[in-house]
């Protein structure tokens, strides 16, 4: 069975989709097969970063969830499109139609979906890792996604609202003994390399910090046009993402 990860944040705009896409691509460079699933139903962003057009998607995740279509019709293989030299990268996108979004938001996910989709991806595509790019916030469905994945990555920025929300999320997850890690994203550069930062955040949340990613204006300027690390392989951001991928390979793979 593959290892499944949820990428979650308390607030929107924390960089979940950017982190998911870049981390997934980085893991393919370790010769891993990785699937990324866009569960941020109200504001899907992964397809923009991957530059997947709606016509490339034969069917959507919503069709699979409702049992209308097989997984094979939902999966888009991005390996060649992104020119990845090894490993495989797959994308599963949600519907952009307002009526489909509203229906899934109303009905909610099934807990079995998370285990089944990972199992199906392993059988059909020999996937090593599955990433669920979740909807932000603390609602029942998002927590179901987080709790149904093997490992939870919480993305946090260093502002009070985000810290408070992540603290509350960590408290909830601790009640379920969930294996969780924190990635600090968009950290003010003056703070990013202070060793005490990781120690203090871990102490507050009771969760280890696996990555500190400073704020880089180049990421904003990039405007989600493609996967940043592929276009800027020597950028410090790429090195930070590599450090997180190293951790996954060594400890969670």
């Amino acid at each position, binding site marked *: 069975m593959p290892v499944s990860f949820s990428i979650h944040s308390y607030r929107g705009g924390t960089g979940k989709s950017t982190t998911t896409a870049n981390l997934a691509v980085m893991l393919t460079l370790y010769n891993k097969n990785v699937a990324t699933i866009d569960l941020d139903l109200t504001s899907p962003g992964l397809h923009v970063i991957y530059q997947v057009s709606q016509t490339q998607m034969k069917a959507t995740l919503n069709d699979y969830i409702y*049992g209308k279509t*097989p997984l094979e019709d939902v999966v888009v293989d991005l390996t060649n499109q992104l020119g990845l030299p090894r490993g495989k990268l797959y994308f599963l996108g949600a519907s952009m139609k307002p009526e489909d979004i509203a229906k899934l938001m109303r009905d909610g996910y*099934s807990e*079995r979906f998370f285990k089944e989709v990972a199992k199906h991806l392993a059988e059909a*595509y020999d996937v090593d890792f599955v990433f669920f790019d979740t909807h932000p916030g603390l609602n029942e469905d998002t927590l179901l996604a987080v*709790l149904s994945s093997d490992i939870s990555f919480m993305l946090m920025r260093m502002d009070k609202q985000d810290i408070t929300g992540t*603290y509350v999320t960590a408290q909830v997850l601790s009640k379920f003994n969930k294996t969780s890690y924190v990635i600090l994203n968009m950290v003010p550069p003056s703070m990013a390399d202070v060793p005490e930062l990781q120690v203090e955040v871990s102490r507050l949340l009771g969760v280890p910090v696996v990555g500190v990613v400073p704020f880089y204006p180049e990421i904003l300027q990039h405007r989600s046009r493609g996967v940043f690390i592929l276009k800027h392989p020597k950028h410090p951001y790429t090195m930070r993402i590599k450090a997180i991928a190293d951790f996954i390979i060594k400890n969670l793979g």
Partner: protein
Amino acid sequence: MSTRRHFFKPGRSESETSLRAKISQALFTVQTDLSTVEKRVSAFEQKLEEIMNRLDDLENRLKRLEELLD
């Protein structure tokens, strides 16, 4: 690799109903502790500020030392 087509069968199990109930309960319990949350986050922010001030101070001393050496 399998040539089988993989369909998902929708529907909820009893364990899911129980997990959803536990999630609601956990959310309810945590929300009642918000004053404690506020205190802990403020203490954390204060500690961070102290660390940053200490670093600023160290940086200033280094600058002064460099000037003296020049």
